[in-house]
């Protein structure tokens, strides 16, 4: 008998209107004027970024801005400082600017926040491969939560189907259809592992991606130059690149947004799973976890010995993907 499983956090279904493109000309920002000279490291990062962009021949920034429909707002994002160098007021102005930009493009009132890492918290994720049925509810809940492009379609989570006998991820399939689980198959959702030793971060020539104190690896979409080095460096194929202008229906936009997480991205930048930073730093579970009808996903504070992730690590058979890559993920797989 088919069970009616609990499904939480599915996307909303308000009436839709035509999908305008998102993003804009600031997808290839140039770090022209940066007056403040305080933190040497970021000066260096900016210098590197400038040289790097020049080596790519990205010079006609002004022209790109001028051709944009919202030159006034986009111009500022072009000359924005590195995230870590922004003071409170500058950051607030940027968040308001992004909100206005979204309102102008989509007619949708959104709130863009910037929740910071909580002290004493290091996030970890554990996924039960015994219970995962491969239904892909997580994959779509993630897209809805994180405002990823619907056309072209972008999903942060990919669910691999593989033979239970061999458990060979290299010969897995992620285009299976129909009823799941199929007999003799295992299902393994893969997303960003928030590695302790993230090769993507070292690969970035401009410090547009870094690891936060709670372990989440973030991307500053305004600083990313779209070189895709990080994507090539990731052993889990967890990073995605906006090849084309992303699109999303206004009715499907999640208005609760974070600067380093699910605000609507421009074309030409890299993005990925961030453990739903805007949710988890305000105490909630990630959207993929809440959408899982079989409860295969567990999340919590690795520093808290009472948390379920810690208990799982201590009592279950736990695996990490590609351990030989030396990435030390904060994403674990376990069996009952």
């Amino acid at each position, binding site marked *: 008998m088919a069970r009616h499983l609990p499904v939480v956090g599915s996307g909303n279904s308000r009436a839709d209107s035509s999908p305008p493109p998102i993003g804009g000309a600031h997808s290839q920002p140039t770090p022209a004027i940066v007056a403040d000279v305080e933190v040497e490291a970021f000066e260096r990062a900016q210098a590197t970024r400038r040289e790097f962009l020049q080596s790519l021949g990205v010079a006609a920034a002004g022209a790109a801005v001028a051709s944009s429909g919202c030159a006034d707002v986009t111009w500022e994002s072009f000359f924005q400082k590195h995230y870590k160098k922004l003071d409170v007021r500058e950051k607030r102005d940027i968040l308001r600017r992004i909100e206005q930009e979204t309102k102008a493009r989509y007619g949708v009132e959104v709130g863009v926040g910037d929740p910071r890492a909580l002290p004493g918290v290091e996030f970890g994720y554990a996924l039960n491969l015994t219970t995962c049925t491969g239904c892909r509810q997580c994959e779509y809940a993630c897209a809805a939560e994180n405002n990823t492009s619907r056309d072209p379609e972008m999903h942060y989570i990919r669910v691999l189907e593989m033979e239970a006998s061999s458990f060979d991820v290299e010969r897995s399939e992620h285009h299976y259809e129909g009823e799941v689980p199929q007999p003799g198959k295992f299902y393994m959702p893969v997303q960003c592992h928030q590695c302790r030793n993230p090769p993507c971060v070292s690969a970035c020539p401009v410090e547009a991606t870094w690891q936060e104190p709670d372990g989440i690896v973030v991307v500053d979409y305004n600083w990313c130059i779209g070189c895709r080095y990080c994507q090539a460096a990731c052993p889990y194929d967890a990073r995605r690149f906006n090849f084309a202008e992303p699109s999303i229906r206004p009715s499907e936009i999640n208005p609760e947004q974070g600067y380093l997480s699910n605000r609507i991205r421009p074309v030409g930048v890299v993005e990925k799973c961030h453990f739903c930073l805007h949710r*988890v730093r305000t105490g909630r579970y990630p959207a993929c976890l809440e959408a*899982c009808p079989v409860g295969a996903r567990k*999340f919590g504070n690795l520093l808290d010995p009472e948390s379920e992730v810690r208990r799982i690590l201590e009592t279950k058979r736990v695996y*990490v993907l590609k351990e030989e890559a030396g990435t030390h993920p904060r994403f674990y797989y376990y069996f009952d």
Partner: protein
Amino acid sequence: MHRTHSIALALCIVGSLAACRHEHDTSGSDAAAPRVNRSVEIVARTPHLPNYPCAEQCHSKRPPNPRQRVLTELHARIRLDHAPVIRWCDFCHAIDDPNHLRLIDGRRISFDESHRLCGQCHGEKAGDWRRNMHGLETGRWDGAALRRTCTACHDPHAPGQITLEALPPPRARTHGGG
């Protein structure tokens, strides 16, 4: 380029405690922030049961028939297929008190507490469930959470394997872009 095939996503065992201790040592973060307002509420089943309250809807007028048989008229969709020891409805249902479930020692429990019923035999799974290592909890990881009881997912009458219809596969054949 079909990335799935080009990357070697080999699975490796972590070991257990030793490995994660090691990793914690290298993280260099502060001491854990205690979870202050942790509370867990179990989501009630009774609002989802169309026949509940069973006495008021039917059984006060028509007492349950304790004879073991194939049901053809009422509850005809129910076919017990669980464990040999579970022979008939009265193993789990309080037949003289149809609004309640019954534990093996005769105690009555609410339909909202099926975990107590199942936990009599599935002690290990029920233990994992209590520690949120099995089952589903939503809400806050640092505070108030909602937990589903066993029958939110498992059919008590014929548990079997849970199957679902997969949502459509991603449209792009290759990844990288989306």
